[in-house]
């Protein structure tokens, strides 16, 4: 049996990293958008 476990470890780590970074990007963009919305609404009130 060929010893090529390094490739499959790399593939699993790459997939996990891509999904995690994308989820983090959604969270980060939502946080920034929510704070922009809040700032806009506070600006309207004052």
């Amino acid at each position: 049996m060929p010893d090529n476990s390094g490739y499959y470890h790399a593939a699993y780590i790459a997939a996990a990293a891509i999904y995690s970074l994308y989820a983090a990007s959604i969270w980060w963009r939502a946080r920034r958008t929510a704070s922009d919305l809040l700032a806009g609404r506070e600006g309207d009130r004052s």
Partner: protein
Amino acid sequence: MPPSGNAARAPSRVHRPVLDWTFWAAAALTCATFVRAVAFTPVEATQGPAQKIFYVHLPAAWVAFLAFFIVALTSAIYLWLRDERLDLVAASSAEVGVVFTTVVLVTGPLWGRPVWGTWWTWDARLTSTLFLWLIYLGYLVLRGAVDDRAMRARFSAVLGILGALLIPFIHLSVYLFRTLHPMPIVGKPGRPNLPSEMLTTLLLALASFTLLYAAMLRARYRLAVQRAALEQEGAD
């Protein structure tokens, strides 16, 4: 037009967390699938451990096709009904689909190198998958480049539908052309030819990746609603 005007302004919709329990449940199930594939699924004798890349690569490809099919479907209905919520679902699905296609394009060469002896070959399946990725990357660039919301939705709907026409071609490319890519193991007439332990892992991976797609689509749609509300308030 934001999603039905009032929907975009409603505080309960705009301020709810984008990554809710559905996302964390899907993430936990995906982690469990990874553990099962790594520790509890037998190693294939000919290809060695690299064969386990299959449990990530194939489900990611299935979800990418599903995501782009949803783009085409919601885009077509948008062109009929002109409801902006459909445009936001299409845009969200396209972005998630690009992420899953990126996983396909990264894990494929990592399997190809030890099994084929090359990272990449310009055969029909690989090249058309790369085209699909580029089309939906172009779709996202187009959405960022057009300011007028109605025009942006209309143009991207047309591109979203045209891009999805490539999906049946990609699926059939292994039958239509001589390619290095293996023939389908599932998604073909007849029973899948896999040992039961491997088939169970594959089915679990298909289910968990589909759930992950649904959770990411839901989260990305919530972000799109927030952004539409911000855009609307900026216009007011």
